[in-house]
């Protein structure tokens, strides 16, 4: 309650906020809470003298017949979707998982080097690519098969999709920064580069140290 304005504090010594205001308050709390809230919990947060029970009667009435309603859950209250509209929510259910390191590296290589063959990916990563990794990327529709290369064996290639661009908020895969740009933008840890720490200045000027890093590594790497 640190951000309460002083006027309110003073007025609360005299009287509770008007009922309509209390209704707004419990509406906001019920909306934002992660678990059902009891009237007692609400009252504890509201200005002194508030009566959430009465406000609750009004709020529940207000939501009658709406797309969501105020449900009583044990001792508490919670806003819930109207039962007849559950079908709208069914697609919301997601089990979100992180991509494995192998998968994200493979995806990155495809994004930067497309069209790229499986052999190319293995060459760049230095490890073999498991079937499951590519299958997953294909299944996610972030990657699809591109044209076969006109070389012995006519190997199949992989390219990224529109779905890939959508997921990563890119307008085109061309907009991805190259290694040099990643480094220049400070997005790449360049401290591991050998010989990078030979700068002269030892004063606290942080920018200076960083700049030294950038220059020396860029020269070496490219």
């Amino acid at each position: 309650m640190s951000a309460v304005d002083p006027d309110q504090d003073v007025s609360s010594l005299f009287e509770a906020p008007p009922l309509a205001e209390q209704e707004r308050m419990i509406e906001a709390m019920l909306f934002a809470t992660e678990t059902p809230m009891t009237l007692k919990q609400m009252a504890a947060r509201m200005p002194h003298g508030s009566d959430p029970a009465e406000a609750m009667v009004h709020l529940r009435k207000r939501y009658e017949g709406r797309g969501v309603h105020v449900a009583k859950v044990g001792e508490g209250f919670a806003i819930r979707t109207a039962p007849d509209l559950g079908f709208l929510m069914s697609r919301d259910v997601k089990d979100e998982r992180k991509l494995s390191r192998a998968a994200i590296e493979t995806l990155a290589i495809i994004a930067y080097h497309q069209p790229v063959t499986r052999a190319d990916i293995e060459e760049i990563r230095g490890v073999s690519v498991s079937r499951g990794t590519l299958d997953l990327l294909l299944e996610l529709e972030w990657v699809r098969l591109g044209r076969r290369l006109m070389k012995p064996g006519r190997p199949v290639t992989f390219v990224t999709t529109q779905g890939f661009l959508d997921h990563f908020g890119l307008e085109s895969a061309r907009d991805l920064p190259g290694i040099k740009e990643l480094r220049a933008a400070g997005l790449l840890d360049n401290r591991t580069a050998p010989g990078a720490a030979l700068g002269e200045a030892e004063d606290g000027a942080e920018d200076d140290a960083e700049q030294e890093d950038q220059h020396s590594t860029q020269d070496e790497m490219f």
Partner: protein
Amino acid sequence: MQHDGLPPSAAPMPDAGDVEARVAAETMVVDLGAYEGPLDVLLALSRTRKVDLREISILELAEQYLAFVEEAKRLRLELAADYLVMAAWLAFLKSKLLLPPEPEDEGPSGEDMAAHLAFQLQRLEAMRNAAGRLMARDRLGRHFFARGMTETVTQNRKVTYSATLLELMQAYARVKTRADYEPLHVNRGEVYTMEQALERLQHIIGDFVEWSTLAAYLPPGLRDTAAGRRTATAATFAASLELAKRGRVELWQDDYDTPLKMRVKPAS
């Protein structure tokens, strides 16, 4: 851009303004570390004048900055190269502003240069103020809030995978720079040691969630020759036993004469 009325020949005298400037400069030198580059220092110096940036005298500001740099040198504070470059540029600008332009002089006039510096300072200050106003706004998760209980209907369960753009770029950078930093095992002579295999396996094992034959774990550089394969297989096999003992991997063989398979031990 206006500048003050010193006659072209007059060397800057230690007048009252200059002393004031030195005092201001000295108080700033103390917290040199707090500045983010020369432009930041210039902006701070111009603030000590308490005048509108649009009316600031770039010539005075240049002198103030040069005094600041001198002061830093006197106090034996080491200045980053950026600060010295700016000092040299301002000294050059000062001379351009004070001396009459040479007819054959190429390049921008002193006035243009000064005007641009004034613009840069105004722009930086404008961005600072804008940043302040932005951060002072009501913000999600602090002043206003999103829905706390999102719907979890347990039908049509669908697994989705997430990855962010940053992770994608970092993954690429990791792949591309790994080769630069990792010793190339292939150059280390004829024998691939168990220690090398162990180090390599610990590095890559996390990628192998599924059963893969031992061959998949061999370093690429050693796969191409029979001798390379032999030493790599022996070392990798020994290392796999060690890792199995430590509980990091699982080993599997369908039958006694089938290839040995390995995978990272699933987190339970």
